């Protein structure tokens, strides 16, 4: 229908190739990686899932959430509650016993059902996101204010979880699971199945989000990001679009949380607090916001490097991570996916100088 410009076409193809490589690599991973490494990549894929969600709200709709740990945590806790009940097999979960609880609190009961858990993993984060989102976006809290607010939210939830040891395991979080839907959680087979489940979720999320951003809604989101009031005076309701995309990203984070728990074996308030929430944003920034392959790449690369470097130089990985964040945001605002544009940029700068 329309002639795409050369630059546009080239860029899209570059990213398509990149994402194909990533997915092929991940699909093949269990065949050449030790189960430990594979398990770690499983975890990174959960992170990539969150990163896609964050990119949808930050890269496309311009909402920087520093509290996505909340949604990740809600999904993860829902799953963990189910696994914990499975592990304790009818008895009171261990942490409740030593918190002097006498019987299972009512809101834990439904989590005995697998179907309910799977629904809750998505619906709980989405409901919370819908409430928070509609309040803040209808009241036009934007930019930095929203970021700080979301940060407060993460902090509040984490503190709350820590304070309610009898219900949520306190700072220990929920851990020591034995089976997931009947399969032993430590066995390599289960891990492989979980790995592929995560990969499938990631691919689905990628394809789904790509579908969305190619639709008009993607352009509306960008419009809201670039000039929210203009979008409003073009007849769009920014709040509705923002709440939608915020809920979408909360759902992705919730699913990621649910897949994270059986693979890592623990969810604790530490993982939903401010620092991990900011790290989530950093994966997106490093990979390249505003593209869908960027966050996937960013989450995989940053976390892989983090694991690798903290294994090799336990005392110094913080230097490295801090350095990477600084350098990427300063000199590569487009993230890793924009590396290929650098030669062109340098050329342009040279030309300018010559002029």
């Amino acid at each position, binding site marked *: 229908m329309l002639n795409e410009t050369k630059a546009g076409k080239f860029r899209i193809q570059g990213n398509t*190739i*990149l994402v*194909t*490589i990533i997915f*092929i*690599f991940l699909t*093949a*991973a*269990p*065949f*050449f*990686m*030790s*189960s*430990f*490494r*594979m*398990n*770690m990549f499983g*975890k990174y894929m959960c992170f990539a899932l969150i990163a896609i969600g964050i990119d949808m709200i930050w890269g496309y709709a311009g909402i920087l959430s520093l509290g996505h740990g909340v949604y990740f945590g809600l999904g993860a806790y829902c799953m963990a509650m189910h696994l914990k009940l499975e592990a304790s097999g009818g*008895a*009171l979960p*261990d*942490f*409740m*016993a*030593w*918190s*002097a609880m006498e019987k299972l609190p009512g809101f834990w009961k439904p989590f005995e059902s697998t179907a309910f858990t799977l629904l809750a993993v998505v619906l709980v984060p989405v409901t919370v996101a819908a409430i928070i989102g509609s309040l803040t976006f209808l009241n036009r809290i934007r930019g930095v204010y929203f970021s700080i607010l979301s940060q407060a939210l993460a902090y509040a939830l984490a*503190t709350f979880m*820590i*304070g309610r*040891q009898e219900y949520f395991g*306190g*700072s*220990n*979080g929920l*851990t*020591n699971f034995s089976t997931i839907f009947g399969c032993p*959680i*430590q*066995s*390599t*087979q289960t*891990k*492989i199945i979980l*790995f592929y489940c995560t990969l499938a979720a990631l691919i689905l999320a990628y394809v789904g989000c790509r579908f969305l951003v190619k639709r008009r809604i993607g352009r509306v989101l960008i419009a809201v990001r670039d000039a929210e009031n203009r979008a409003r005076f073009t007849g769009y309701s920014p709040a509705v679009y923002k709440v939608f995309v915020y809920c979408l990203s909360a759902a992705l984070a919730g699913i990621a949380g649910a897949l994270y728990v059986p693979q*890592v*074996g*623990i*969810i*604790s308030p*530490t*993982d939903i607090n401010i620092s991990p929430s900011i790290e989530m944003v950093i994966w997106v920034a490093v990979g390249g916001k505003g593209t869908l392959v960027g966050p996937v790449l960013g989450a995989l690369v940053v976390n892989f490097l983090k*694991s690798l470097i*903290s*294994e090799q130089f*336990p*005392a110094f*990985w913080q230097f490295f991570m801090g350095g990477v964040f600084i350098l990427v945001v300063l000199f590569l605002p487009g993230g890793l996916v924009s590396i290929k544009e650098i030669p062109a940029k340098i050329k342009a700068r040279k030309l300018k100088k010559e002029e």
Partner: protein
Amino acid sequence: MKKRDLWKKILSVAMVGALSMSVMGCSGGAMGEATESSTETTESSEAEESSEVTGTEESTASGDTVKVGILHSQSGTMAMAEKPMIEATQMAIDEINEAGGILGKQIEFVLEDGASDAAIFAEKATKLLTNDKVATIFGCWTSASRKAVLPVVEGNNGLLWYPVQYEGLESSHNIMYTAPCPNQQAIPAMDYLMENYKGEDGVLKVFLFGSDYVYPRTTNTIIKEMQAEYGFEIVGEEYIPLGYTDCSTVITKIQQTQPDVIINTINGDSNVSFFKQYKDAGLSPDKIQTMSFSCYEEDIRGMGAEYAEGHLFAWNYFQSVDTEASKAFTEKFKSIYGEEKVTGDPVVNAYEGVYLWKAAVEKAGTFDVEAVITACESGEVECETPEGLITIAAGTTHHVLQKVLVGECDAEGQIQTLWETEDRVEPDPWLTEYAWASKLTTDSE
């Protein structure tokens, strides 16, 4: 245009190859492992066990060295607490290596950073066990990190030596606890308080104050269960989030309730805030005494002795313990890591963990985890340590027999022993010997 795409694809395939090579490290792959293990399960379970045993034997103790893991936080909020633990563990390993190693093998350690995050602890423990194939792990500080590592060591048949006093109500087949459980710290300390700190009305009024965290909460739950039996009165119970820096409100509540003793189970940094602000509020130990379970010489050094002077602390070891072994240990620790360093109970626990493992391995005659655990459970694994003779209790509790001390901090920041139990106290992590604790333990498996 098409040609260029082709080249790109070729390039990318090459990249994938390179990347995968770098990641692989070891051969096999998870898929391989999975098929392996599934064939194993079809065989008899005995055969499986034996094949596993030989597997670990080969990998952990190949050549002249045996690999062990040290897993503590080197970054994040817990780094300040866990750094001395790493140092003590390393010191013990070096000593053993100098003395000829274990079963003729030198110990080689792999140091991993838990980054004050339980999930990272789990990840690193898995790495140590499956990638590095270590014979044992020394590490963890917080309950959260131990709870996270527990399923990992159980699932991969590893062995963890845990060096920090904790809330009890736990015993894992694959964990050895070298530190006290509540009946080796909190409960005797309460005995001491009942004897010495009853108020004028003959009733001991206790204020429970701790970090919002599992150890303090559970310890306080235990103390609350004791209440009926002991007849003391709990006038308040407060928790502050980890890393909280303002204790003034809680101190107001303390002044409001006028207890005889504050049971302080604050962890880490907040101790400094608490003791500083306690003094600021015009309080002192002779007005309201405190008894701390989670604050040792190192914390006192970090806040300044003037704030801790006169307060009470309960441990199994103080740096001030006046024995040759203790003095020599402290001296050596200082000579290696610096004059300003101090030792204390957790440091010694980390140190003796290595020696207990050595004793157990030597008794078992092998590095195999199952054999070592069996040796430990015999009740005959013991060693001389700075705190005296330490024995791993017979049976499956996996705790050690040790004395309990209550001491008072002096002007130099040293805790001087005021009272000690006559004998070493038998560990009882599930509090089975205590009738009042039945409610806490009924639901355990």
